[in-house]
C-alpha cells in the first residue's frame, strides 16, 4: 500500500512539472512560433512601446525559455519581483503571475473566486452521482424494460444538449416565466438560503448533463460486469441476488465511475466556464472568460494552471480511493 502511494505521489509530481511546462509552452512558446509579440499581448493592444519594453524586461522574455520557466516555477514557492522600465512590482508567494494590465496579482483574485466554483462543482457532483449512478444501475438490472428505455432516451437527450442551452432555457422558464427562483447569485456569507436559491438552477442544469453521461456509462459497465464469470459463480454458490449486485457487481462497476469522477470534478473545480457564464456566477470560469475577452493572459495562465492542479489532486485522491475499493490495486 505504501509503495503504491509513493508511486502515485511521484507520478503526480512528474505530471505537475509536465503540466507547468505545457501551460508555459501554450502561453510563451507557441505564440512566439506563430509570430506574436508576447510582450505586447501582456500589455494590451494600444500600449506605448515603452510599456511593452518594460514588460519584456520584467518577464525576461528575451531570456532563454528554460530560465523563464524556472523564474515562473520559483515564483510559485518564493514569490517574485518584476524589475523593468524603471519600476519594481512585487508579487508575493504563491505567485501564479501578475497582470500588468490590471496591476493585480493573479493568486488573490483566484482565491477570491474559488469558493463559488467549488460550491457549484461539489453540489452538482452530489446530485449527478446519486441520480446518474442510480438510474444507470436500475436500467442495467431491468434491461429492456420501460424504465430502461425511458431513462436511456432522457440520458441520450441529456448528453446531446449543450449546457448553456439548457441553462438559458431553465432561466427563461423557472426564473423569468414562472418566477419560482430569483436566478441571482448571492454569496454564501450574505445569506445561506439566498445562496441555495441562486445555486439551485446551476446545480440541476450541470448535474443533468453529467447524470446523463454517468447513467449511460454505469449501465454499460454494469451490464458488462453482470456477464462476468465471477458473477455466475457468486449466483451459483447460492448468494442472494441482492448480495451479488451490492457486494460483487457494484464494486467493479464503481471503479471506472470513480476515474471519471476524478477527472470531471477536477476540471469543474478549475472553473465550470460554460455554467458560470450562463448563470453569471462570479467563479473562476467567469474570470477566465473575462480574461479571454480582455486578452489578460496572466489570468488565463493562472486559471489553467490551477485547474490542472485541481485535476491532478482529484486524480491522486481517486488513485488512493482505488486502493480502498479494489484490492488488486494494492497488491500490484
Amino acid at each position, binding site marked *: 500500500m505504501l509503495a503504491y502511494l509513493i508511486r502515485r505521489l511521484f507520478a503526480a509530481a512528474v*505530471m505537475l512539472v*509536465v*503540466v507547468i511546462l*505545457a*501551460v508555459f509552452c*501554450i*502561453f510563451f512558446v*507557441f*505564440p512566439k512560433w*506563430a*509570430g*506574436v509579440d508576447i510582450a505586447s*499581448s501582456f500589455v494590451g493592444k494600444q500600449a506605448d512601446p515603452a510599456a511593452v519594453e518594460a514588460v519584456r524586461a520584467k518577464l525576461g522574455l528575451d531570456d532563454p525559455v528554460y530560465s523563464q520557466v524556472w523564474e515562473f516555477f520559483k515564483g510559485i514557492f518564493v514569490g517574485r519581483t518584476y524589475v523593468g522600465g524603471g519600476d519594481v512590482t512585487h508579487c508575493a508567494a504563491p505567485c501564479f503571475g501578475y497582470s500588468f494590465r490590471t496591476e493585480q496579482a493573479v493568486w488573490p483574485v483566484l482565491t477570491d473566486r474559488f469558493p463559488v466554483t467549488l460550491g457549484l462543482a461539489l453540489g452538482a457532483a452530489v446530485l449527478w452521482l446519486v441520480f446518474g449512478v442510480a438510474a444507470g444501475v436500475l436500467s442495467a438490472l431491468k434491461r429492456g424494460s420501460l424504465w430502461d428505455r425511458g431513462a436511456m432516451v432522457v440520458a*441520450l*437527450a441529456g*448528453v*446531446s*444538449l*449543450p449546457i*448553456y*442551452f439548457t441553462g*438559458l*432555457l431553465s*432561466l*427563461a422558464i423557472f426564473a*423569468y416565466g414562472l418566477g419560482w427562483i430569483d436566478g441571482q447569485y448571492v454569496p454564501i456569507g450574505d445569506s445561506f438560503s439566498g445562496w441555495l436559491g441562486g445555486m439551485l438552477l446551476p446545480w440541476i442544469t450541470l448535474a443533468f448533463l453529467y447524470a446523463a453521461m454517468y447513467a449511460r456509462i454505469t449501465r454499460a459497465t454494469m451490464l458488462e460486469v453482470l456477464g462476468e464469470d465471477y458473477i455466475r459463480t457468486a449466483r451459483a454458490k447460492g448468494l442472494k441476488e441482492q448480495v451479488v449486485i451490492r457486494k460483487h457487481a457494484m464494486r467493479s462497476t464503481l471503479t471506472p465511475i470513480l476515474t471519471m469522477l476524478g*477527472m470531471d470534478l*477536477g*476540471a469543474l473545480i*478549475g*472553473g465550470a*466556464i*460554460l455554467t458560470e*457564464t*450562463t448563470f453569471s456566477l462570479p467563479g473562476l470560469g467567469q474570470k*477566465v*472568460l473575462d480574461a*479571454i*475577452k480582455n*486578452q489578460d*493572459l496572466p489570468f*488565463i*495562465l493562472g*486559471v*489553467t494552471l490551477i*485547474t*490542472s492542479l*485541481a*485535476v*491532478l489532486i482529484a*486524480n491522486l485522491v481517486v488513485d488512493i480511493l482505488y486502493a480502498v475499493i479494489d484490492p488488486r490495486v494494492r497488491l500490484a
Partner: protein
Amino acid sequence: MTAPLHEPAAEAAPSAVDEATVAATGATAVQGRSLGRIAWERLKRDKLALTGGVVVLVLILVAVLAPVIAHLVGQDPETHHEDLIDPLFGTPTGSLGGISGEHLFGVEPVNGRDIFARIVYGAQISLLVGFLSAVVAVVIGTVLGVLAGFFGGWVDAVISRIMDGLLAFPQLLFIIALVSVMPDRLLGLTGTSVRVLLMIVVIGFFGWPYIGRVVRGQTLSLREREYVDAARSLGAGRFYILFKELLPNLVAPIIVYTTMMIPTNILTEAALSFLGVGVKPPTASWGQMLSSAIDYYDSDPMYMVVPGVAIFITVLAFNLFGDGVRDALDPKGSR
C-alpha cells in the same frame, strides 16, 4: 473485432476494397455473409440509428448547399433588416421573434439578420469542425496507437504516458487557452479560416488519445493472434503484417469511435464559439448565436431556442447513429 477476417475493411471503403478482397480470396461463389454485411443488416433494422443517419445526411446536404438554400428562400445571413426591429426594445416586431413566411425562423434582435439563413450557414462551421477534427484525431490516434501496440517496449511506454497525460488535462480550458493566444493571421490565412483551422487542429489534438488508447489495446491483443503468427511464419514482413493483417481488423473500432467523437467535437466547437474564442462575427455559427441570445432570453426567447435546437438535433442525430453503429459492429451483439 474477434474474428480475424478481412471483411471489416470492406465496410469502410465499400466498392474498391470489396472487389479486391473478393478477388484475392476467390470468394465470389461463396454465399456467406461478411462481417460488414452482418453489421449493415443489423444497422438497417435499428430504426433509431437509421433516423439519426438520415438526419445526419440531410444536415450535410444543408451545409454543402447552404448558399443555394439561402438563395431559394431569398435570404442571406448578413443582410440587416432594421425595419423589422422594434426601435424601443431592439427585439423583433411580430410574434415569436418575427417568424413569417419570409423569415422562417424569425430575425435577430437589433440588426434583424435572417435566422434561418444564419442557421443554414452555421451548419457549415459545425459540421466542418466536427468532421475534420475527428479526422485529425483518428489519424494521429491510429498511427500512434498502432505504433505503441505493435512495437511495444519503450515506444509503447512513451506513447502511453503521453496519452495518459493528455487525458488528465482539463481539455476545454487548454483548448480555450490555445485558441485564444493564437493570432488572427496564420500561415497566410485570415479571419474565419484561421479560427476554423485552429479549432480543427486543437480539438483534434486533444481528441486523439481516446482513439489511440482503443487502437493500442486492440493492436496488443491482435498481434498475438494465431493468424498473425501464421503470416509471420510464412515470412511476412513487419509492414505487411501491420497493413494487411492488423489494420483491416482495426477498422471497426475506429469507425465506432469516430462516429462517437464527431458529436462531442461539434459540442466543443459550439462551446468555443459561445465563449467567443471560436468563429468571430459576422460569420454565423450556432454557438455564437446562443451567446448573443443570452441578453434576450426573457424578451426574445425564440432567438435562443432556434440555434439551441439546431445543436441539439445535430448532436442527437450523430449520437443515435453512433450508438447504432457501435451495436451493429459489436461482435458480441445478439441481434
